[in-house]
């Protein structure tokens, strides 16, 4: 048995080197196989998608690459292109300022809305990324609306200052009265703020030139600036109002409950376009012709009412999703209504409602283009009216509406990405 070994033809004395995996099990080929061609149906879908992308690229590629940027009318564009496929982007170049600011905002003042726009990010930062910034920075956010008003509309600085102080007065009164009852605190705060504004109205009149920027009437505003203004103002106003309405609808006090229910159901039952017509047309009869309540303000009120009714229902959904135990826990800790809402109920309910609120906000932002129907020159209004109504540019559709779509896409996609990030940040579920 001793020479058994010698009879063995071959003995491996070392471990085989690792062979590379088969070519179809590694790298891009594996990825393609697994993701694009894993089954017959997937293969068909992949091929169809490739065809669609190719088709779109060959259809739009030359059109965009051949685009003309420097002519002064559609006819000249066509002369330059000599029958080739190509876009006439000159309209964007020539009417760039009009598309962004409307056709009447004085061009030497463009820096003001631009500055307000830049500051918007400064103001939104602490609010949106509250984990990154210390709480103190929220003061910036609180001051921003008044600063933006001052920049965009101009006029004396006293108007936004007093408006801000009115809110401060309201908050002080609320703090005092909320210990007795939440509803009383709110009511007292509203009354105090309005009384303050009314009283200071007598002071701002004579001080109209104190630290005044050149005033710009709101009918001179337009373009994408108007969409942004309406969107930002109405979303930020409708969120607190929506919360109040949602709480009001769940209240045990019949008057508050029924006011909320009637408001929400009435506003939700009416199309936005109808409300806009009411703002523009019907109110014109009830207000004197020289009324100070200008169109943009009427439209802001209407869109805010509309959005807050929807947000109220979204938040009510969030409130309803909370287990009853949460309410009872708040009660058992001896918290009063305002405290239990602020500390326990709303933080949870709002977190649940984020997708719904974002949904309403994105929809609302796009709905701001409806104001073009009541002859306001927002981005779409500028395109449909003045620009397509100019004999040089009549007939340019794809370039203009594509540009509008691009602007809206950028904003809406950012909002949607942010909200997904926010949901991940607030994720506390046990999964």
């Amino acid at each position: 048995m001793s020479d058994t070994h010698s009879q063995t033809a071959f003995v491996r004395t070392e471990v085989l080197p690792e062979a590379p995996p088969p070519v179809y099990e590694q790298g891009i080929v594996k990825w393609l196989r697994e993701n694009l061609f894993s089954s017959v149906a997937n293969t068909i879908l992949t091929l169809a998608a490739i065809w669609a992308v190719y088709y779109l690229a060959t259809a739009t590629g030359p059109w965009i690459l051949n685009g003309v940027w420097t002519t002064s009318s559609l006819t000249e564009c066509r002369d330059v292109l000599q029958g080739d496929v190509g876009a006439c982007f000159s309209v964007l170049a020539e009417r760039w300022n009009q598309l962004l600011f409307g056709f009447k905002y004085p061009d030497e003042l463009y820096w003001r809305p631009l500055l307000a726009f830049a500051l918007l990010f400064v103001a939104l930062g602490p609010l949106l990324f509250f984990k990154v910034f210390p709480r103190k920075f929220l003061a910036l956010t609180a001051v921003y609306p008044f600063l933006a008003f001052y920049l965009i509309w101009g006029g004396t600085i006293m108007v936004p200052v007093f408006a801000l102080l009115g809110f401060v007065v309201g908050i002080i009164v609320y703090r005092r009265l909320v210990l007795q009852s939440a509803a009383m605190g709110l009511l007292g705060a509203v009354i105090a703020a309005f009384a303050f504004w009314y009283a200071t109205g007598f002071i701002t009149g004579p001080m109209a030139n104190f630290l005044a920027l050149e005033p710009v009437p709101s009918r001179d505003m337009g373009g994408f600036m108007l969409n942004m203004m309406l969107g930002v103002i109405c979303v930020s106003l409708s969120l607190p109002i929506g919360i109040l309405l949602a709480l009001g609808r769940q209240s045990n006090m019949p008057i508050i409950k029924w006011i909320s229910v009637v408001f929400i159901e009435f506003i939700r039952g009416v199309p936005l376009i109808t409300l806009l017509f009411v703002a523009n047309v019907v109110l014109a009869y009830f207000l004197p012709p020289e009324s100070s309540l200008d169109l943009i303000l009427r439209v802001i009120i209407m869109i805010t009412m509309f959005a807050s009714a929807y947000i109220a229902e979204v938040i009510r959904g969030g409130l309803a999703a909370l287990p009853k135990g949460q309410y009872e826990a708040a009660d058992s800790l001896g918290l009063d209504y305002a405290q239990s809402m602020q500390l326990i109920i709303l933080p949870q309910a709002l977190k649940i409602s984020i997708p719904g609120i974002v949904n309403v906000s994105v929809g609302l932002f796009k709905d701001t283009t409806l104001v073009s129907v009541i002859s306001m020159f927002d981005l779409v209004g500028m395109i449909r009216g003045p620009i397509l109504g100019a004999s040089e540019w009549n007939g340019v559709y794809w370039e203009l509406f594509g540009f509008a779509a691009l602007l809206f896409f950028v904003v809406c996609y950012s909002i949607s990405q942010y909200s997904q990030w926010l949901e991940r940040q607030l994720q506390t579920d046990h999964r």
Partner: protein
Amino acid sequence: MKTSVFFAAMTAAGLSAGAAAAGTLDDVKARGTLNCGVTTGLVGFAAPNANGEWEGFDVAVCRAVAAAVLSDPTAIEFVPTTGKTRFTALASGEIDMLARNTTWTFTRDVDLKFEFTGVNYYDGQGFMVPKALGVSSAKELDGATVCIQTGTTTELNLADFFRKNNMDYEPVPIETNAESQQQYLAGACDVYTTDRSGLAATRASFENPEEHAILPETISKEPLGPLVRHGDHEWGDVVRWTLNALIAAEELGVTSANIEELAKGTNRPEVNRLLGTEGTLGEMLGLDKDWAKRAIMVGGNYGELFAKNIGESTPIGLARGLNAQWTDGGLLYAPPFR
């Protein structure tokens, strides 16, 4: 052109509550600006240019009135209106006059309580077809597919025309002019019908306008003109006679080039009365004697305004047609300045 019964009814109802204040002329003078309602943008008739200044054939009427009343053709607050908001804007007093290619109809004049102060453009509904179709008359359109804006009087006119001529058609309903241009070019319909001025402007925007023809038939009457609120006749007279002054100036050969010279006095009494060197016509209107001179100097007489904004040398290229002076076989006929 386009009527919305609902808004018409609302306008009429609102009038009773509305502030149809008398004395618009005094209001305008006191305010120092004229609130003039225009369209949000229509090729050749009214649109802001790249510098944000309004220009166009309807805008010219506003400018002439502002020049006559306020001596300043730029002292105007242009209030853009849509087809749906224009009448309420006027009835509620938001605007002093409306110059927005609005068709003079019985109901608008009588039922909505407005006062049309004349006609600055005689329009009418027409048809546009591709030349490749080989059609030379609207009577040959039996069985055609027609692009038509819904909810407009053009839709009703079309139905009447085809019924009267015992023909069939297939309507392709569309919402806006922009949409119809795309549909027509894409071949979704054989024929596009709207007002002839609109057809001309649409055709001018095509890549190959010479491949499309506007058929000779005009199947409706669309007299477009400025209007004011009913009941304020002093103001109505100012707008009416400013328009008439532009028309008469063309008839009398007064142009922006020779007006300074003619205003020194001529041996033609009507020219003298128009330009204020004789008579007291301006005072009768509540204005000064140079009112018509200022109105004409803004952009010239009717013919010059037509040529500059929508005439044959512009991309729109409208012929004078019905809008020629009565002496040239058209319908323009300004009453005498006497």
